[in-house]
């Protein structure tokens, strides 16, 4: 009779309790794996952004105020030898919509020459870059958008701008970006936009953001200060931010879902710990006498300890399995990015998230079994045998 | 002060274990007059508890009839029997079965909550019942603050508080020492002699049996002996 056998027998003894516990554990666990996936994904994006060493330069009062395109040269002039700064890419908000669709896409016109360098997370190969430079109407599209509208490389697509003067432009997809950090972006050549604006009679070459790619973190810090100093006091004062700070404006403004998810993850851990702890207390109380008998017939304390703790761990892992696997499967089959809701569009179950979820389940199992297990060590055989269940 | 007579005719009762029939009572006939004090003896497994449960309407016979007072239990629905039981039967268990979280007084009050009754009246009745069992001073104690004998007395108070016609006791002294047992038996006897209750007590204790006016021996589902005797009261 192995320990495993005893454990299984114990769980089968009160099947309804085992089932209820497992389900009560599995449901919050399902939330946990989703929440932690979200957190992990955002962290990964944050890290990948941090690796990009980009600064966002925009108008001090608001993003919607454009800065004249000549600012790019002025920024570049701060570091003529390019020791600190690698490249600057100006971007202008287009706010395009697929005709007859409600969603405004995160569509931006970018400087053709520097975009592939500054947005290296777009993952453009040499041939991609060639196509991008050759084709006046080239656009690179994030995977979430491409999947939603079933676009593939070579397709001609049309977007209608939602900002004055509400241009309708045609593009040709040259690249689909798979990196999660750009899965919801649509980039095209700014030159094309400015020319079209000129044709429409509203020439006014401006950029909403200048992305400044730096060589190192120190360079980034230096430039962040220097750029703002350069323009301070002028009518074109700027604010220069880390990419993560810049983006947090948007996640915050969309309700701070990452914050909600983090809070949920904590609440969920508390709940499952309580659920598991509760079951272990009940099960221990009912079995006090039996454990005493084990002890009386010569089971080592360590073994009894292992029996109690093992049951808790086993229960937790079963609950985790039942909660995590279907959730992960669902998230894989129906990627949340289809919702096109900024903060969670990057939600994908990663192995990290799954490992983290199991680790939490294991920890909860251990912790909640610990108290009864310690109680079992203190069990006075004679006392317990006398105690009426 | 009320009492009921009891009449059993051809009562059969079997249990089934894995489709195997275990006959317990096999055509039992019995008449108990109102106000009688009957002791029921017999080896373990002979069907004493089963019989008591039938008398209380907790269970139904497979065949035959059980009449207690006006009630023909074999033809009553569970709901009717439950309602009837609350009014006509007082049951005393071997293990007392007091609610551990309630005081003696509250335990005794439990059956009264099924009646439309003012709380003043309830209090008065509980007071009387506790007085009968001699536990007025323990009214506010919890079961775990009482001795076994006291617990059983509370249980008896609970059984008589509704003023039932019949008191059924299943080995009420089975868990008590000799001295306490005799106190409990005195009490039951008092209920019989002073209040005229019909009492059926299951016991293994010869001394308990000796106090009864009538002694029934049950074995393998039939009465082996039925002795009427002069109760040697307070011997």
């Amino acid at each position, binding site marked *: 009779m192995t320990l495993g056998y005893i454990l299984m027998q114990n769980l089968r003894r009160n099947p*309804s309790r085992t089932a*209820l*516990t497992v389900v*009560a554990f599995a*449901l*919050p666990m399902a*939330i946990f794996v989703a929440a932690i996936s979200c957190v992990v994904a955002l962290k990964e994006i944050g890290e990948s952004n941090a690796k990009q060493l980009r600064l966002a330069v925009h*108008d001090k*009062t*608001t*993003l*919607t*105020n454009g800065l004249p395109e000549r600012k790019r040269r002025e920024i570049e002039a701060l570091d003529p030898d390019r020791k600190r700064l690698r490249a600057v890419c100006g971007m202008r908000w287009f706010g395009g919509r697929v005709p007859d669709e409600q969603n*405004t896409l995160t569509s931006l016109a970018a400087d053709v020459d520097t975009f592939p360098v500054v947005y290296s997370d777009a993952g453009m190969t040499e041939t991609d870059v060639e196509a991008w430079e050759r084709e006046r109407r080239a656009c690179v599209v994030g995977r979430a958008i491409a999947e939603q509208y079933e676009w593939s490389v070579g397709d001609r697509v049309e977007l209608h701008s*939602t900002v*004055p003067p*509400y241009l309708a432009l045609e593009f040709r997809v040259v690249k689909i970006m798979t990196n999660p950090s750009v899965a919801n972006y649509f980039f095209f050549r700014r030159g094309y936009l400015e020319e079209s604006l000129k044709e429409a009679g509203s020439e006014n070459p401006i950029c909403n953001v200048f992305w400044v790619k730096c060589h190192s973190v120190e360079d980034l810090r230096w430039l962040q200060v220097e750029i703002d100093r350069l323009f301070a006091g*002028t*009518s074109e*004062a700027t*604010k220069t931010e880390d990419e993560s700070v810049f983006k*947090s*404006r*948007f996640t*915050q*403004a*969309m*309700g*701070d879902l990452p914050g*909600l998810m983090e809070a*949920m993850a904590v*609440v969920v851990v*508390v*709940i499952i710990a*309580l*659920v598991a702890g*509760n079951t272990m207390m009940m099960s221990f109380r009912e079995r006090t006498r039996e454990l005493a008998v084990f002890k009386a017939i010569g089971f080592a304390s360590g073994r009894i300890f292992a029996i109690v703790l093992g049951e808790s761990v086993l229960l937790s892992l079963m609950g985790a399995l039942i909660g995590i696997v279907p959730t992960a499967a669902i998230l894989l089959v129906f990627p949340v990015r289809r*919702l096109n809701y900024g903060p969670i569009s990057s939600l994908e179950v990663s192995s990290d998230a799954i490992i983290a979820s199991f680790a939490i389940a294991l920890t909860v199992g251990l912790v909640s079994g610990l108290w009864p297990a310690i109680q079992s060590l203190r069990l006075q055989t004679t006392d317990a045998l006398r105690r009426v269940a | 002060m009320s009492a009921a007579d009891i009449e059993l005719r051809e009562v059969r009762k079997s249990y089934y274990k894995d489709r195997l029939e275990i006959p317990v009572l096999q055509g039992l006939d019995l008449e108990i007059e109102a106000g009688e004090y009957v002791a029921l003896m017999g080896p373990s497994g002979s069907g004493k*508890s089963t019989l008591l*449960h039938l008398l209380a309407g*907790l269970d139904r016979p497979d065949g035959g009839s059980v009449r207690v007072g006006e009630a023909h239990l074999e033809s009553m629905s*569970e*709901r009717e029997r*439950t*309602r009837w*039981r609350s*009014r006509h039967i007082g*049951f005393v*268990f071997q*293990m007392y*079965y007091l*609610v*551990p*979280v*309630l005081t003696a007084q*509250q335990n005794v009050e*439990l*059956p009264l909550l*099924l009646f439309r009754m003012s709380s003043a009246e309830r209090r008065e009745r509980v007071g009387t019942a506790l007085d009968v069992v001699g536990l007025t001073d323990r009214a506010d104690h919890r079961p775990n603050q009482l001795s076994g004998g006291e617990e059983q007395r509370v249980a008896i108070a609970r059984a008589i508080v*509704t003023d039932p016609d019949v008191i059924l006791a299943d080995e009420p002294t089975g868990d008590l020492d000799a001295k306490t047992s005799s106190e409990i038996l005195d009490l039951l006897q008092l209920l019989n002699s002073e209040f005229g209750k019909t009492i059926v007590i299951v016991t293994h204790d010869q001394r308990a049996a000796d106090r009864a006016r009538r002694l029934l021996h049950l074995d393998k589902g039939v009465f082996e002996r039925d002795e009427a005797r002069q109760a040697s009261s307070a011997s």
Partner: protein
Amino acid sequence: MALPLRYHWLSLFARKTTTLLTILVIAAVVGVFGWMMGFHAALRDSLSVAGDSRKLIVIKRGSTAESNSAVSPEEFNRLHQLSDVQVDPETGERLISPEMLVQVSLPRLRDGGATFANVAVRGVTKSAFKVHQNVSFAGNRTLGSREVIVGRAAAEQFGGLEIGETINLGHGGIRPYEITGYFSADGGPMESEIWGDLHSLMNSYNRSRYSSASLRLGDGADAKSVLERIEGPAIQLTGATETDYWDGQAKWIRIYIGIAGGLVAVMSLAAVFSIANTMYSMVAGRTREVAMLRTIGYSGGQVLWGFVIESVLLSLIGGVLGCLACGAWLSLVGNTKDMFGATTFTTLAFKISMNWRIVLASLILVSVVGVCGALLPAVRAARLEIVAALREP
């Protein structure tokens, strides 16, 4: 209810740990539920205030919101053709308000200014106060050329908006405007805005076009037919009633609430299972007590009710605790929140608060959870074979 409440109460606490742990599970779920309800209510209140169906917001065709719309003065003037617009009894003019919307980035007070919000700055004329009827402002409605007034919600949540302070607006943020007063808008979205004089702001932002026009429909006018005329060849703009406008802007908010609601639903279900577990153990631990009650005349139904009541009691304690925790969280950690409209890119600020309706809703939810959790165990107790239970050792 046959058994006294005291009996249930005491029985619950006869098993302290189990009961306590279950209560805490429920409290955690209710805490989250309460917060979410508060959030939902705050938004709904705010948006329903905005939902004035007699008010039309007119924007440029092809734009999605006031913030990306540009309406030239000529286009604006064409609106005066509309006959179904209410007339101002004082001036005899039609109630059409030209407006310009820009944004200013302001620090959130909630996180000590670590993050910034895009706050809407609206250039208005005197007529705006008549079109937007829920806006109430005590001071002079002809705003000075270098002064702005601030919505109360904005003043509470974003930095630098005290009366007497100056805020730098205009292109490049070089034109200081003095804050001279606060206005309220019944908690609607305009309360998250800053208002200044239309012409002064247009000047500061080098703009020659308005963003939008708001107009108030005349008595008996049909919004739909007015909108058709606005979209027709004579005017060539587009618009929506304010109700529909905000409904469209609430898309992200709805997704957010959907997600939060889904999470709460899953957790409530977990709470049901957790309670069921506890109640099964309660029933199992009290078989003989139930048998005794049945013997002394309690019916199966009464026993069933007893356990349901016990479970609801347990849940209610958890519910009250959860509401308290949620209230404490809101008052200690913070109750302010802001969100973008789906396409406006301007911020809607609101305050989450516990009110009696939310507490009531939480307690109702928790009672339902309690009943659901108790049902199967209680049925088991009611169906208990008395005779068999009495025989148990």
